[in-house]
C-alpha cells in the first residue's frame, strides 16, 4: 500500500514506568487494537537518575515522539521527564497513565500531539470509576 492517502501519521509516545508496568500496558494496547507500535516501552528499574534521563532522550530522538506518559507523579521517570520537558517546550508530559489513556491516544488523529495527549488524559481520568453495588 502506498503512503499516499494513508492520512496523517498518528502521534507516538514513550511510556515510562516502574518494573514491567509500561510493557504490560503497551502489550495490552497491542492485544486490544494492534497499535502498540505507536508506543515505546521504557522501564526505570535499576537505573540511576541520569541514566533514566539519557534513555528517555535517546528514545525521543530515535522516534520523534513529542509525548511522554509516566506512571507516578512522584516517580523517578516523571522527575527525569520533567527535566527534559523544561528544555523542550513542545514536549507534552502526562503522568498517572492507564490503559484507557493509551487506547485513546493511539487512536487519535488529525490533532497535534498535545491535543491528543490532553484528550487521552481526560479519557483516562474518566475511566477511573468506582462501580456502585446493585
Amino acid at each position, binding site marked *: 500500500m502506498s503512503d499516499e492517502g494513508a492520512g496523517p501519521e498518528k502521534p507516538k509516545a514513550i511510556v515510562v514506568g*516502574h518494573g514491567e508496568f509500561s510493557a504490560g500496558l503497551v502489550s495490552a494496547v497491542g492485544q486490544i487494537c494492534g497499535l502498540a507500535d505507536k508506543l515505546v516501552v521504557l522501564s526505570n528499574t*535499576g*537505573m*540511576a*537518575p*541520569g*541514566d533514566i534521563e539519557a534513555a528517555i532522550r535517546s528514545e525521543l530522538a530515535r522516534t520523534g515522539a513529542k509525548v511522554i506518559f509516566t506512571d*507516578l*507523579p*512522584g*516517580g*523517578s521517570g*516523571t*522527575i527525569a521527564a*520533567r*527535566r527534559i520537558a*523544561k528544555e523542550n517546550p513542545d514536549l507534552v508530559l502526562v503522568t498517572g497513565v492507564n490503559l484507557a489513556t493509551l487506547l485513546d491516544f493511539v487512536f487519535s488523529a488529525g490533532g497535534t500531539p498535545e491535543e491528543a495527549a490532553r484528550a487521552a488524559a481526560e479519557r483516562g481520568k474518566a475511566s477511573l470509576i468506582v462501580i456502585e453495588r446493585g
Partner: protein
Amino acid sequence: MAIQLYRIDDRLIHGQVVVGWGQPHNIRFLVLVDDLVASSDWEKELYRMAIPPEMEIYFADVETAIRDHPRYANDPRPGILITGDIASMLRLVKGVKAIGSVNLGGIHHRAGRAEKLRYVFLTPEEEVQLHALESSGVEVTAQDVPSARSRPLAEVLEGETK
C-alpha cells in the same frame, strides 16, 4: 515520631520513598538534604511537585540540616530524611551525632562503581565512607523497600554474587 528513616538514595524523591516507605509508615514530612537542590528554586519546585498533598517537604544543604536537625527530630509527625550520596550523609552524621541508623536505598551504577546489590553500587572511596559511618556508631543497612530483607553493611560489601 520524628525521623523514621535516614536514607541514602541517588534518586532522592521517587516512588519507593513516597509510596513504598511513605504509605506504610504514614510519613508526613520529608527532609531532602542536598547542596545542589537546596541552591536551586527550580530543583526544589521539581521535587515539591513530586510529593503527595499529605506530605510536607523541607529542603536543606548539609550545613542547614545539621543546624535544623533538632527541629526535624522533635517534629511530632513521622518523617524521612534523604541524601543523594554517602558523603553528604557522613557529613550530616558527624555534625548531628544523634543518628542511630542509615538505610542504603539506591546507589546506582556509574563508572568506577562495583555492584554489591542490584540497587547498590560502590566505589572504593564510598566503601571507606560507609565504614566511617559505622565507626561513628551508626548502623548501616541496605533495604530498598520495607518488604525486603534488611542487609547489614558487612553483607552488602561482600556482594550478592559470592
